[in-house]
């Protein structure tokens, strides 16, 4: 105990080299090498970088430091000792904007399990699609619930609008997915096999109305996932019947519906649905029956909206050409896949797929890729059913799983897989967001009562809905720098 302190007193120093991948905070070449005290920690290093002689940032930017692919969490001296290195080692420190823990901000109570969450904000996709029609500051949160209702909340947690019940044009069963198409349009889908497009109007900023405008029929099973493209007004759905639906929200261009799928098509239907509000009923632009097990998610390519990716419980990821409706390529993994998100990258998107085997596998969908699975994100203890990419960058994502946690992953922090984990590289979560409702309680077995069903990540925050009938909002900005 005496030894290290005495060394520190004598001013043991470590030679470090600062590097970064971020252009805006590059250090001049001459200042990159520095001798720092051995007992310095992250905070000290961050202050050194922020000092006038170094970066001269006006407002201090908190930095984190990556040493050999892992974040520096101890003093330099302890790190060196822990890794059996000498004090003379020249350490290369990659500095990144520090991760601010995704602290809990708010919870919105629901009547039933929350199965779908989406955000309308200036930075969200829907906000961008609606462009000038979006009023700044009027951020809205959309939630779909197992009680079949859509709710729209403002940022302070007040319900602004609720969708009508099934008798009045609403969903007749649980909603499984919902998305803002724009600031005035919402799409939702659920176990009643229909996609509904709603018109959302606000009289003032505290009351609004959701009116069904379009009912899209075509799936023969529960629709588990829904992805929208507000710019082209296209909807992509994945259903338990193994098909991927491709829809349009425009009444005029949508094809006619197949009458056999309409409710009440069977003469002996026990309950007549007498809907006071009638919405137009339309069919799909394309119904791609591509999977032979329930399709669990489908997403658009972030760059090319005519390309989609879909995953299924049949272990495959399929690249779909939406214009021709053909399967371009099929990648087979070793586990049933339950969720999907596309992380935009320069060349081709990186697909993150959540599996029933409690991990997230990152897949390069290009046909030229040598390995299917690029990386595995391990840490969840239950099915990973929801994934969302970071709004800020292309190397972090959040995953929601049935174990009642959301995990934030930094794809830059990588280690090689151990033998049990198989080949490839593995990452571990940067942050774990527990359910606030489980605070102080014993960890639930198999996420019983606190499953997360949906998660979105916007600059407003990380919104997750789950079995605890809550939308939980965590701070989402600068979580991963």
């Amino acid at each position, binding site marked *: 105990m005496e030894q290290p302190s005495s060394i520190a007193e004598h001013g043991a120093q470590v030679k470090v080299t600062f590097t970064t991948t971020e252009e805006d905070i590059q250090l001049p070449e001459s200042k990159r090498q520095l001798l720092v005290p051995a007992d310095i920690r992250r905070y000290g290093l961050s202050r050194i970088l922020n000092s006038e002689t170094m970066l001269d940032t006006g407002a201090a930017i908190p930095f984190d430091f990556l040493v050999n692919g892992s974040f520096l969490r101890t003093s330099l001296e302890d790190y060196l000792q822990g890794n059996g290195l000498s004090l003379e080692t020249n350490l290369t420190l990659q500095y990144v904007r520090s991760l601010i823990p995704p602290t809990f901000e708010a919870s919105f109570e629901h009547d039933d399990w929350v199965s779908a969450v989406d955000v309308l904000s200036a930075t969200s996709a829907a906000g961008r699609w609606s462009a000038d029609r979006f009023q700044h500051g009027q951020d809205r949160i959309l939630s779909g619930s197992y009680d079949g209702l859509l709710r729209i909340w403002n940022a302070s947690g007040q319900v602004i609008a609720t969708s009508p019940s099934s008798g009045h044009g609403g969903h007749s*069963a649980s909603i499984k997915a919902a998305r803002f198409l724009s600031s005035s349009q919402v799409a939702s889908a659920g176990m009643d096999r229909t996609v509904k497009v709603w018109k959302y109007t606000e009289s003032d900023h505290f009351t609004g109305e959701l009116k069904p405008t379009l009912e899209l029929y075509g799936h023969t099973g529960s629709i588990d996932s829904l992805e929208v493209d507000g710019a082209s007004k296209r909807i992509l759905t994945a259903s338990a019947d193994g098909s991927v639906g491709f829809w349009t929200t425009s009444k005029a261009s949508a094809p006619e519906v197949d009458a056999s799928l309409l409710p009440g098509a069977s003469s002996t239907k026990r309950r007549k649905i007498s809907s006071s509000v009638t919405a137009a009923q339309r069919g799909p632009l394309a119904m791609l029956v591509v999977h032979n097990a329930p399709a669990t998610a489908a997403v658009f390519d972030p760059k090319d909206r005519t390309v989609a990716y879909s995953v299924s419980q*049949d272990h495959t990821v399929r690249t779909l050409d939406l214009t021709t409706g053909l399967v371009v390529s099929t990648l087979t993994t070793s*586990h049933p896949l339950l969720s999907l998100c596309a992380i935009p990258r320069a060349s081709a998107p990186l697909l993150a797929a959540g599996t029933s085997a409690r991990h997230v596998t990152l897949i390069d969908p290009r046909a030229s890729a040598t390995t299917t699975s690029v990386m595995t994100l391990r840490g969840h203890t239950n099915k990973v059913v929801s994934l969302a990419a970071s709004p800020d960058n292309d190397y972090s994502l959040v995953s929601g799983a049935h174990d009642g946690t959301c995990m934030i992953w930094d794809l830059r922090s990588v280690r090689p897989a151990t033998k049990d984990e198989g080949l490839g590289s593995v990452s571990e979560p940067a942050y774990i967001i527990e359910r606030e409702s489980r605070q102080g309680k014993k960890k639930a077995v198999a996420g019983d009562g606190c499953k997360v069903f949906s998660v979105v990540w916007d600059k407003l925050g990380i919104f997750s809905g789950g079995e605890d009938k809550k939308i939980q909002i965590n701070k989402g900005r600068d979580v991963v720098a």
Partner: protein
Amino acid sequence: MAPRMVDKKRKAPAAATPEPQSDDEFQDGVFEGALSQSESDDEDFEIAVSDDDDESESDGEGSGDDNGDEDDGFLSDDIPSDDEAISKGMKDVEITEPGVDPKVEEKEDENLGYKTEKDANGGIRYVYEEIDPVYDSDDSDAQGPENTIGDIPLSFYDSYPHIGYDINGKKIMRPAAGDALQNLLDSIEVPKGWTGLTDINTGNPLNLTDEELELVRRVQMGLVPGDLHDPYPDTVEYFTGIEEKMPLSSAPEPKRRFLPSKNEAKQIMKLVRAIREGRILPYKPPEERQREEEEQEEVHFDLWQNEEAQEPNPMHIPAPKLPPPGYDLSYNPPQEYLPTKEEREEWEKTDPEEREKEYVPQKYDALRKVPAWDDLVKSRFERCMDLYLAPRVRKNRLNIDPNSLLPKLPSPSELKPFPTVTQTIFRGHVGRVRSVAIDPSGTTVASGGDDGTVRVWELLTGRQIWSVKLSSDEPVNAVRWRPTKDSFILAAAAGEDVFLMIPSHASVTPTLDQASRDILAAGFGYATNGQQHGEPGKEPAAKWARPGARLEDEGVLIRITVRSQVKVINWHRRGDHFTTVSPSGQRSSVAIHTLSKHMTQIPFRKLSGLAQTAAFHPLRPLFFVATQRTIRCYDLQKLELVKVCQPGAKWISSFDIHPGGDNLIVGSYDKRLLWHDLDLSTRPYKTMRFHSEAIRTVRYHRGGLPLFADASDDGTVQIFHGKVPSDQLENPTIVPVKMLKGHKVVNKLGVLDLDWHPREPWCVSAGADGTIRLWM
């Protein structure tokens, strides 16, 4: 003696032969004479020369003698020495040469060595020359002429010119006495060695030589006389080491020296043999030999290399221990051992080989009354025959490590995937969940429990999406989906009723819903049209009816009422038939229902034992019925019993047939899990006892994964890897891979039912604690 002999010889030839010369020559030098004899005949001159040589030779010798004692010359002027005489003779010859016939004279002088003189009588007298015997000059004993006058005083010869005679009778002349002056001088100047005495023998003054003086001195000094005495003389060798050039013997070489020696031949043969046999090796320099030895590795031979361990005495096999003799062998056995008359008769009647005992106990009063053993020879013979025909054989006991007999089972980690943890808990049932089933599409789960409800759940999330209450007092004992995808029909049993329902939640399309309704409704028409089974008066096996408006609204469309409580439902793979088993139903415990005809048949009029469960074969038209102890397999087409399996369990609880159709797993209430290979045997291939409580359910995975599971009252589900090889000759591999713990044991009931997902390695289990769990 020698000179005399020579004289005689000389005389004889001198007289006999005209050429005494040759004798002379011979005398002088044997060798020279022999050589010169041939030449001397012709040439005189030559002879003369040779004579001259002779003379000079002898002269040389004589002079040597003279030199030996100088005093002789001085003292004896008158008496000429031999040399002088010779030289005188020579001179004489020369002198007389002119007077006498020189030739003759010359001849005589030169050849003979004597002079002829005229004696008194005028006769020729030969005066011979003094013969020099030529004694060895180094003979020290021959010291001049010895006076032989004997022991008389010398003074007797004072008046004579001589003083005595030598050995040859010649006068020894008195030495000339020197003149007075000389004597005086001599006396004054005493010469060395002067004694003043006169030698008796010679009459000369006796002077001592240096040696003698030295000798005298030494005697006087008391030293060893004579320094000639060498106390350390050289060894005189008796045998010379000098090799002679010429043999001393001229004897002819013996013949044997020219014949090959037999002995040597023998010795050589010995050597040859030794060389051939390698006992003698050709010579090599020691360093080379050493090098070769170094090159040759030292080779050691392990004599006991292939030695097998032997028993100390392999021939000894101990005889089996015979039982000790009993009382009945005694000569005086107790009364109860003695046979009765009937027994004896019977013994006598039976064939000797079939007799239980070879003897009959007999009683004698005393040992001496025991007769001789009449069967001695026979028994000896039989003993010998035994030894000959049935010798004792040592039984080889197998000594095998029991661990090596265990099959090589793969590690569970290699057998992934299989379910490992709970991933979803389905909550909602009140009381036990008695049955659970996953629908053919793999998205929903149906369950039935003690609360009389049937519930349908979303598989992954655990959301209940449909439910119906079938009965308020009877538990739902079984739920089973119709195993086809073209319909969505669930069969559930509550009490004596079997309900067929369409749990048509929102995800069921109207088409599917309608198709299912059509399937269920089809039989009503049949029932009304063609007066089905059942002779009038006889109670039908089951009553098919609509369950009533309330249930029909919920989707329950048909109620089948059988005679007793139904515990098990199993569908045929095509979905048209299903079987129900009511263990308490006696005769009608097993029923086969035909959906399309709304018909129920009771296939067995009589069953041996209580039927527990029944199932259709997955591929062939076979029907399996399990009673408490056995599983019977019937052919449905031929209507006959095909096979009876006897698992050996005391009370079978459930069984399942492998999708391949050739294997069977059986669970029993006595905690046993048994694997039957139907082709192999009626007995189980493998018995596993891993549970501490009764096994309720066993179930194969039907989606192509080699998995099966059993559920037990101890609250666990055990997952097994059970691979049935395609090759008929190989045995199935059965590896327990996982024990799933999670369900609580309530009232000694744990897990009551389980089912596998149709594709994935997921299973659901129904617990007595009111939950259903999804394991993946």
